[in-house]
């Protein structure tokens, strides 16, 4: 099994203000990495940068030695899945439709696919079976968030980036999600990077903690509470 690696090399990230200044970190091998930091510290922006959605001011990010900036959009979608924090509300898309879109980077006719074993496995773990055929604006915020996470996981990429996936979830769902993600990372040798504020739960399932503070990225073996 090939080991997946992400290298962040001396990156500078600016939006309207400078968010990260000359940061480096090597994600060496699979695992569930927890990213924390105060509101507005740049967690989402860093995740977007790794997803290739944000242009770097300087430095580079590589996945298995290949620079993200030089990958084509289609190639990136086969390697990195990203679930943003903003919920999607569309009344003509059902939860099943949304999850199915996860296959679009790989299958030309993804909209005609029937749900497979992986699909049912993911739906079961996230407990969204009851709302599978409901439209996205007819379900709760938590269920919508689970549907979007399911979509990203169903993309089955080596790198999975989740921006505050537990923000709207109930307590048992949060615990189960972190537990399942840590298993998933090891079983399928994925790098999963989760930004979150639920550090007490995340701490139980991961020893890989990153924190953004004062425009720098720090690594801890335990959640920096």
């Amino acid at each position: 099994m090939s080991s997946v690696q992400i290298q962040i090399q001396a990156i500078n990230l600016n939006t309207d203000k400078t968010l990260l200044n000359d940061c480096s970190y090597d994600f060496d091998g699979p695992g569930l990495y927890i990213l924390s930091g105060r509101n507005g510290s740049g967690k989402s922006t860093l995740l977007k940068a790794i997803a290739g959605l944000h242009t770097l001011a300087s430095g580079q990010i590589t996945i298995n030695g290949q620079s993200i900036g030089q990958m084509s959009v289609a190639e990136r979608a086969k390697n990195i899945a990203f679930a943003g924090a903003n919920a999607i509300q569309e009344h003509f898309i059902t939860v099943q439709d949304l999850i199915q879109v996860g296959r679009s980077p790989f299958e030309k006719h993804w909209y005609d696919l029937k749900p497979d074993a992986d699909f049912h496995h993911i739906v079961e773990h996230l407990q969204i079976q009851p709302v599978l055929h409901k439209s996205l604006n007819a379900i709760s915020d938590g269920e919508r968030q689970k549907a979007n996470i399911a979509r990203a996981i169903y993309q089955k990429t080596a790198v999975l980036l989740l921006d505050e996936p537990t923000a709207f979830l109930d307590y048992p769902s949060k615990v189960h999600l972190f537990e399942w993600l840590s298993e998933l990372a090891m079983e399928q040798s994925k790098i999963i990077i989760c930004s979150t504020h639920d550090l007490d739960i995340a701490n139980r399932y991961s020893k890989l903690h990153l924190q953004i503070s004062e425009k720098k990225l720090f690594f801890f073996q335990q959640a920096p509470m």
Partner: protein
Amino acid sequence: MQANKIVVIASVLCAILLIVDAFCLPTFIDLLDYKINHSFIFWSYRLPKALTACIVGANLALAGFILQQMYANHLAGPYILGISSGASLAVSITIIGAHIFPILNHGLSLSLAGMIGSMLILSLVLLVSKRFGSGATILLFGVILGQITGAIQSLLDFLAISNDLKAFTVWGMGSFAKVISWDCAFLICVSLIAIVFAWRLMPALSIMVLGNDTANSLGVKVQQTQWQLLCITGLLTGISTAYCGPIAFIGMAMPNLARILLPSIHFKRQLILNCLLGASMAVLSDIIASLPIFSINLPINVCTAILGGPFVLYVLFKKK
């Protein structure tokens, strides 16, 4: 299977309306009991009119569908976003310009002008939506843009010589009857090409509904696809408007009906359904407009507004 059934029903409906429009309605000439050549009327008037209604309806509904998805706003459409007005203005300018450059007085140059006009407005709308987001702002911007182009249009009307004024006014009410022979063939060919291109972009559009970041992370070249869709929408609206005048409500109402009938992310199927429903509504409007009870042909916009307006209000006030 349910989905396919709806598409089949829509095609049957569309075909029946088309046949009624082309074959079954008496013309005034029939009623006046003149001795006339029926086959001449059919080939040079009835059939082109019915086919034009069909293709223009499909174009406008598809353009409305694309705009509604791109701007995530179910009340968007070529008419309300000012795109039809942009096309109208460009066509008016071309009609006036034809006095100076006679070469402009041709179906081809008029449709080209319509396309350029609608694409200019569309680009403005796209730029504004990038800067200020979608939602209510974009609708208001479109309405205001429509007002401004409308004002310039009024100025032209005011300054125009009486023949041109009559031409603008009649054209502004919408009509499927003036597209004959080669113009009709040209309109159908260009529209079909645009529809085929749109067909190829449908999967990407359906992913873009999830938001630009998500779409990008799923391998969609968002910016490029947006500009391609913009060109197609401009082409569909521009050519329809150039030949038949600005036609209201089809582009706004039919995508909503399609979504209610068949809520699905399978946008290729949505495209077919939209085209069929748009064509049906346009042909139905044409049938109503040329019913013998009115003693003259009504302007198309009168019928589309009466058919489409209440439906749009229903969508607006319907609880989610």
